């Protein structure tokens, strides 16, 4: 019984952390149709921002929930303003640009920050279920993921600015004709997506550590999750993260970790074969 409960919690955690890792990419992909290959490095920068400011004596929660998203949001602003904007949505050019950015950020982190920044231990204690224990921080990660995604949904669904964003996602020209400043909107959404990546990087840092190359462990799964989600990025990504997180963790429980990794990829392939335009290509068209 305890075992089932613990397994269930681990499954939820895997789903939540995959969603958290992917959501920033989903916002950027959903709004700008830009695949940000530097996404992993945005998470890395978020992790460093958190670890460095916490190490400098800043309150842990301020460092995690404010400084990290703000820092990566600022980075996102610069990237959008000086690179992405000038590519005019050319998907091929953005692949090369963001890949270059990814290498650049890794190199920068390796040169400037080095490999010796001290990490932060996961706060909180543990809860006990019979002979099993789980870190309370695990629940915290789930809560952050849920709060992030739910507030995005609420904002897009019910606020005026959310409506504007949805309109611009559907038809940028029409939105522009109706007086929306789509250029500023694109910048704003890129910054939002970056900030969310920064948040995710910071929240996961105590569990994953921070190194210049840490982004590589995130980017592939985030990429596959977001694309498999399909056209309606937020709903799609949430569903895909749940499916993939569940599959890989369940397979890892039943067998070896490598089976978990492969299972995720196979499910992604089968899914895209059955729904060639992603989960939300066929269903949930009216979702966000």
């Amino acid at each position, binding site marked *: 019984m305890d*075992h089932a409960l*613990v*397994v269930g919690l*681990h499954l939820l*955690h*895997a789903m939540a*952390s995959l969603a958290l890792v992917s959501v920033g990419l989903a916002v950027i992909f959903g709004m700008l149709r830009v695949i940000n290959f530097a996404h992993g490095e945005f998470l890395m920068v978020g992790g460093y921002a958190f670890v460095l400011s916490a190490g400098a004596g800043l309150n842990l929660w301020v460092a995690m929930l404010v400084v990290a998203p703000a820092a990566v949001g600022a980075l996102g602003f610069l990237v959008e303003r000086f690179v992405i904007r000038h590519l005019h949505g050319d998907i091929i050019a953005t692949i090369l640009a963001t890949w270059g950015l990814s290498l650049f950020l890794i*190199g920068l982190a*390796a040169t400037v920050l*080095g*490999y*010796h*920044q*001290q*990490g*932060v*231990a*996961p706060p*909180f*204690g*543990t809860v006990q279920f019979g*002979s*099993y*224990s*789980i*870190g309370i*921080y*695990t629940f915290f990660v789930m809560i952050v993921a849920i709060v992030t995604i739910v507030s995005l949904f609420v904002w897009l669904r019910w606020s005026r600015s959310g409506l504007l964003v949805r309109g611009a996602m559907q038809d940028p020209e029409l939105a522009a004709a109706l007086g929306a400043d789509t250029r500023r909107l694109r910048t704003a959404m890129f910054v939002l997506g970056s900030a969310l990546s920064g948040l995710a990087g910071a929240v996961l840092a*105590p*569990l*994953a*550590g921070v*190194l*210049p*190359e*840490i982004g*590589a*462990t995130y980017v592939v799964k985030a990429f596959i999750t977001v694309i498999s989600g399909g056209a309606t990025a937020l709903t799609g990504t949430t569903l895909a993260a749940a499916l993939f997180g569940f599959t*890989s*963790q369940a397979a*890892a*429980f039943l067998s*070896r*970790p*490598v089976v*978990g*990794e492969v299972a995720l990829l196979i499910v992604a392939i089968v899914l895209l074969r059955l729904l060639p335009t992603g989960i939300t290509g066929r269903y949930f068209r009216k979702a966000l």
Partner: protein
Amino acid sequence: MLTRRTFIEGTAATAAISMLGRQTRADDPISVGAIYDLSGPLQGFGDNQWRCAKLAIDQVNEAGGLLGRQLEVKLYDAQSDMQFYNQFANQLALRDRVAVVQGGLTSSSREVIRPILHRLDTLYVYNTNYEGGVCDRNFFATGATPGIYVDLLLQAAADRWGKRVYVLAADYNYGQISAQWIRKAAQSLGGEVVGEEFFPLDVNQFGATISRIQAAEPDVVLNVFVGPAHEAFYGQWASAGMNQRIPMMSTTFGGTSEIVRMPPEVVNGIMVIGSYYESLDNAFNQAWLPEFRRRYGTDYGYLTDVPIKDWYGWTLWAEAVRQAGTTERDAVIEALETGISVDGPGGPVSVDPATHHCFMDTHLAEARDGEFRILQRYQGVAPTNPAAQCDLQARPDTNTMFTPDI
């Protein structure tokens, strides 16, 4: 064109070219080759490897060089990419005509360059702990092999906590072979391996594993993790409160300054084994470590036995050249095979003529507040596991990599 081809046809001819190239005037510098990962995912290892190597080379040069000649090091950054090891090894042997090549970190990098340097008659010294088994007259290893380490660790665990061990290892030759040694060691101690899991190098979710360990309730967990993704384990282990409940040992922890990067509350108590820790109080280290810090500052992380072996590798080679009176390969090999010995920050190290691996002091230590506390010293530990099949004195033509007979 034709002459070139006939030249390249046989290795003997190639050797002749290299020999010709090495005939130099008495005051020319001696070219030596170094390949390290100074960028890419392995930079965390490569930076300190190179610092230690350079210290040894600089010390030789500052003391007047070798045979009255300065060492001129050709350094290449392999960028954590095997194809560059290939390119640069060829370049060092064919263009730079170096007297020795040292470097490489992963077993794959070693197995890429070792055959090349063997074929091109250029001496190769490899300075990293690895799974063991290489038997090649042109090859010397200063690194330790896991057989020795796991024996000592499990003995220490049996003395302190018990004999039921849970093994976590990288799904990697090093991890697989280590796991085999662990099984054997546990058996001979009368203990048992109650669980064994292997992880691809980029897995960083350990929830399932941690709950399985909780179910198995071992006396001790022994990990052989490799790479940055696996580091995530420690945070997750501590988050679940396990670092207070089950002791943890590792043969790999510490290699990339984890001890200063990870919060003490996460890693305190992890028991490790290796030939060097900064906290060693021998006289040599008391002078050596300040010298290292004088040259490189203090922002290098923390040195353990992986980078330090590069200092030994270069120092051993220099000693052999002095003894041989020449940089010529065969003479240097013969000098090394006399069981040559040097003192260093981790204690004296000497070459085993039969296996071309090294005898060295080994220390049991425990992570404590950003430092490794030395628990025990084992003197002159022998390179046991390649010894079983490899005898380069009896069979100098051997050129192979044995799968250790476990």
